[in-house]
């Protein structure tokens, strides 16, 4: 049994019967947790066909954990949807499969087969095209095919300036587009869930969490996450100031580039060729959090897609990436 399987199996056991917690949850996390649970229950009660967009990263881990708690002792009354760009880290896929199996959850995987057949990849086509075809379009077609009317996403308001005013219930038209002019005012915890057929709502239960809250919650709740978040010796190359992991043989090495083993970890996970690592010795959650407290750069500086183009978040959002 791999480490990942063992960890996830132990985690699944925790939800077989409630386990009394040892230490009370920190006050502010208790507030954030209750808010997220409230949001998830509203969606489960008011929509016909909700789904959780599951990206396997730490935010998704927290979101899934909250769903397991929100409906306990029932199971979350919706499936998970993963959009596989085919360039995810191998450990992410192993982790996803363990989650599905050990927790007995339905995880639907969407791959843009047409894109795969054409061999769309971030090296030859650029990160923008790759993201557009393998992520944005794949997500859209999953949304359409499964007729989801509500989809949970793990985005947070603190991630970027332009996200600060995003609603918790973000309205999408029949083409899954985000029309900034057509968003609804959100008062109290009274969410308007009315939509017409074909329209949908993106729901962000972690809107009010910060990156530090996420880590602290993972720590206090002991939530399993993909091992890539922990520092280990990994084969990497350095490119344009970013440390890129050579996760499989598909990464074309440039002239003179030789993978080196370095002690690195990731603050955010996506497609391995597009995700920068940081040098770190943090091998436990405690060490990660302590490192976070003294961190000098923001989380997003590790995401290559954000550097592509100014205002790119806004654009991606309109195209349905979020």
């Amino acid at each position, binding site marked *: 049994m791999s480490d990942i399987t063992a960890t996830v199996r132990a985690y699944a056991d925790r939800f077989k019967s409630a386990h009394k917690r040892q230490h009370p949850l920190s*006050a502010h996390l208790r507030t954030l947790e209750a808010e997220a649970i409230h949001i998830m*229950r509203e969606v489960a009660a008011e929509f016909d066909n909700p789904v959780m967009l599951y990206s396997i990263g730490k935010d998704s881990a927290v979101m899934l954990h909250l769903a397991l*708690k929100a409906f306990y002792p029932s199971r979350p009354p919706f499936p998970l949807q993963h959009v596989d760009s085919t360039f995810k880290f191998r450990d992410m896929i192993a982790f996803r499969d363990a989650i599905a199996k050990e927790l007995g959850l339905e995880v639907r995987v969407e791959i843009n087969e047409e894109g795969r057949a054409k061999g769309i990849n971030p090296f030859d086509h650029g990160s923008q095209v790759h993201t557009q075809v393998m992520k944005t379009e794949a997500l859209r077609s999953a949304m359409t095919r499964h007729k989801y009317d509500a989809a949970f996403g793990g985005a947070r308001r603190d991630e970027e300036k332009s996200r600060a005013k995003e609603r918790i219930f973000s309205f999408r038209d029949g083409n899954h587009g985000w029309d900034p002019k057509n968003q609804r005012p959100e008062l109290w915890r009274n969410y308007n869930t009315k939509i017409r057929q074909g329209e949908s709502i993106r729901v962000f239960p972690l809107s009010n969490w910060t990156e530090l809250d996420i880590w602290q919650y993972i*720590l206090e709740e002991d939530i399993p996450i993909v091992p890539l978040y922990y520092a280990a010796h990994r084969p990497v190359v350095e490119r344009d100031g970013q440390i890129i992991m050579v996760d499989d043989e598909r990464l074309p090495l440039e002239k003179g580039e030789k993978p080196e083993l370095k002690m690195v970890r990731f603050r955010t996970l996506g497609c391995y060729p597009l995700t920068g690592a940081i040098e770190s010795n943090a091998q436990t959650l405690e060490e990660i959090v302590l490192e976070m407290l003294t961190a000098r750069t923001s989380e997003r500086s590790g995401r290559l897609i954000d550097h592509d183009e100014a205002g790119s978040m806004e654009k991606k959002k309109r195209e349905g990436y979020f």
Partner: protein
Amino acid sequence: MNVENTRADVIERLTHSGQRGVLRFLTCGSVDDGKSTLIGRLLYDSKLLFEDQINVLENDSRKHGTAGDEIDFALLLDGLEAEREQGITIDVAYRFFATEKRKFVVADTPGHEQYTRNMATGASTADVAVMMIDARKGVLVQTLRHTYIARMMGIRHIVLAVNKMDLVDHGRGRFHEIVAEYLKSADDLGFESITPIPMSARYGDNVTHRSETMTWYDGPTLIEHLEGLDVDADIQNEPFRMPVQWVNRPNLNFRGYSGTIVSGTVQPGDAVVVAQSGSAANVERIVTADGDLDKAVAGDAVTLVLNHEIDISRGDVIASAEGRPEVTDQFAAEVLWMSEEDLLPGRSYLLKIGTATTPATVSALKHRVDINTYEKKPSRKLEVNGIGQCNLSTARPIAFDPYQQIRDMGAFILIDRFTNQTVGAGMIEFGLRRASNIHHHAMDVSKAERAQIKGQKPAILWFTGLSGAGKSTVANLVERKLAGAGHHTYSLDGDNVRHGLNRDLGFTDEDRVENIRRIGEVGKLFVDAGLLVTCSFISPFRSERQMVRELVEEGEFIEVFVDTPLDVCIERDPKGLYKKAQAGEIKNFTGFDSPYERPEEPEIRVDTTSISAEEAADQVIAKLKEMGRLG
């Protein structure tokens, strides 16, 4: 090293003793009072910015800053500029920072035009409002407006941030002058606390650290004050309330009710009732994935198991048996209107309160409030950003508490039934009658009996279409044929209603809505009497037709769309009305300067351009037979 210890240490370091959870506040002020500078300063001082962000900030300050050589903190927040250009009208930005004692969420509400609804949105989840005042300008009309909205939205604590003190020589006299001026209007609004602080956001004086120049001020800095403020105690002392979100039924042996406690506390053994039905039970368990709780408090999301089975579903409120909420279908509320389309009394909207959603209408608009002067003015409609005192009536009784007592039990939104937009926000003040007091007198002869004697299924045949479409002609023929076949009928149309029952109504949007409401009620009485009622009215708005549909039982409302295009109606012009409208002699004429909203799914549609009125009537009759209404 003991792992458990390390973990505890790290958590300790993250949360610190004396940690007080989250405080939500909002900043209000006019443009350039320094809101953005203040928030930027708070983010900066709380060391929440990373090196890459600070580098960008320093660069931007040099390039576009307005603060000379200093860092322009306002630039941190400019994500909103671009959006202003895109014409987004409702925006509230939320930002996060933390000190050693507390975590903060700031709602930042820019945008001058839509300020009222933006501010109300931000205020709806805030505990404190920080009123920014430019020390040079003093208290402005806007300050009073913001104060009114804060009060209306139930904010109990005000910080009067007298900013830019550096520009008035840090003068103590000026500060006290402004405070006195503010208290003159705000003191009797009933805030729990009003805390004036002289500050200079740009230089950080009295924001996170004490001013070295304003030594005459011995009160707290803004952060000290916000860290110390106790805002949760009140809501826990109110009686227990939990609107049920979701019935939790994993298997036959477990039945729980999931929801967020909005006020009070609950413990196993407590006596509770379902507010709407009055059914009583005791709490047996408070279930969470972290184990059963001995006690849960306002703000907690839990699942309650009761000691015996009673009928509970989403929308119900589980409440303390001792202090119950009111249950009513008519109440008075303050309503803030947020849609470009006016609020019309009589129109049907969806009202969502807690977890319950029901059709509702504003039955009376008592007056509009001018929030600059706090004056009450008579009005027949509410425009966007307007605030009005209204009576509302709901299709189903709701459980509530006054908003100012328990926010989540008195807060509702109004949703347009066709666009699904959130068009209004309301705060309940008091109930107008208790639902339990309305005893419908049980009549000996029932509707079913009356219908049975006549041997028919009563219904409203609602003919809608443009003026001159042929509604009355077709309806008249339909009634003729029905009567000929031995049915008991009645017909309502503009002529027999406008001259009597609705003599007092004109043709404005408000009056048209009221016109249809009354006709709907009369139609309903005839259905009760067992008749087949034909109604021919332009009835241009979908909302009102929907409202009538909901007055009667499923299947009893049959919408007949007499679908004649405008140009054909103009050509026919049987009453010469289009000519007058074209000449400008009639105002608000449907199809001209007043809209007609086509039915989306009428039960019956007739096209009088391709068939005669006689044939159209036959079509209607055939369709009714097909639907099984004439059996």
